[in-house]
């Protein structure tokens, strides 16, 4: 965000998360919130990643382990279903892949520059030895 002069911001270095009023934050999903320019929600840490998770919904059982253990609020679950990864906020730690219980895993790490379609097409099959 643009750097302002000394007379252009609120006193006390205070920050507002939302534009205007929000009545029920805990009852409002992120896509329905009016975030201000000062919420880190509008920022991106995508450039931190050297590896990225790719989600294969064909094997997902919606157990939500990836949702609960994601440190970066980057597993998007709606209506009890895992629907994808927020690639602006994912730092590529790989926890989601580690905690994924399916066989084969529904999430795997690939180099940041890997092509998602290609990786999905070449997804590993069930591994009987290491469940």
């Amino acid at each position, binding site marked *: *965000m643009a750097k302002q002069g000394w007379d252009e*911001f609120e006193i006390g*270095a205070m*920050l507002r*998360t*939302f534009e205007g009023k929000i009545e029920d*934050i*805990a*009852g*409002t*999903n*992120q896509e329905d*919130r009016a975030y201000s*320019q*000062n*919420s*880190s*929600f*509008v*920022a*991106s*840490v995508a450039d*931190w990643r050297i590896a990225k998770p790719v989600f294969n919904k064909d094997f997902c059982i*919606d*157990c*939500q*382990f990836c*949702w*609960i*253990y*994601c*440190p*970066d*609020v*980057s597993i998007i*679950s*709606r*209506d*009890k279903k895992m629907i994808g990864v*927020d690639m*602006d*906020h*994912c*730092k*590529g*730690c*790989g*926890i989601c*892949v*580690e*905690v994924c219980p399916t066989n084969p895993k529904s999430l795997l*790490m690939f180099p940041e520059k890997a092509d998602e379609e290609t990786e999905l097409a070449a997804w590993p099959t069930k591994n009987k030895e290491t469940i």
Partner: protein
Amino acid sequence: MSEMKKIKNLKEFSTSADRFEGANLLCPGCAHSIIVREVLNATNDDLILSASTGCLEVCTAVYPYTSWDASWIHIGFENGSTAVAGAESMYKALKTKGRLKQPDRNPKFVSFAGDGASYDIGFQWISGCMERGHNMMHIVLDNEVYANTGGQRSSSTPIGSSATTSPAGRVSYGEKRNKKDMVSIMASHHIPYAAQVAPNKWKDMVKKIQHGFSVEGPVFINAVSPCTTEWKFDPKDTMHMADLATDSLVFPLYEIIDGHELNITYRPKDVIPVEEYLAAQGRFKHLFKDEYKYLIKEWQERVDANWAYLNRREAARV
């Protein structure tokens, strides 16, 4: 009293709308934010939050960005607990005087702080908050080290850990003193609830946080927070590290009600040897040299003794 949020299972929990945001500056794989999410998502009530200076604070409120969707305050290293106590006092005052803007809300007051900010520099402030009976919860994100400043020892750093101010070296095995039993100290304030939690045991965590929110008076929570940077393990292994911590009983999960009723809340089916917990972390690497292997044995004995102590307390209802 508002109704407790119903969280029967993980699928139901996953419908929570997070009030903590990504693009914060915590390390990839940091357990702090996993704990914070589990805590905040345990309730739908409004929240008034604080963080003492430390990793969580410096990574979530660096101007011009905030990662907090509820009102949040940071003052200093030692006084995050008192900041929330002050806010809670103002809430009570304005409630009495009928000046709350939204009088029907039922806010929860929570202060987060690291082990340095809780066991060491903020100890007196937290003790004061617990003693005075504020309706608040203090949560320690216990990674057993001053991680934010680069890995100096705190009074939560365990024996044999190599920290930058108690480094392992040619003639030293690192930290010489065992960590402070903070949960017992805080429970000795005879607060209504004190507990130890771990992020891998999310259901135990949520149950305890909800219990803490349901009681009147101060609550103390010690949460083990595996630190990829200072414990020296791969960021993807954070939850594995938490599993090792709870299942080796290095971090037993228990609660103390009113200072005199201890319940063990998690009994691992297969207890893992402490050696496995130590071996998984770079900070203990030097203990596997021949001359320090006796320390691993002592570690196991210490953990066993503590587990026996907790079991004795539970059996005796004290």
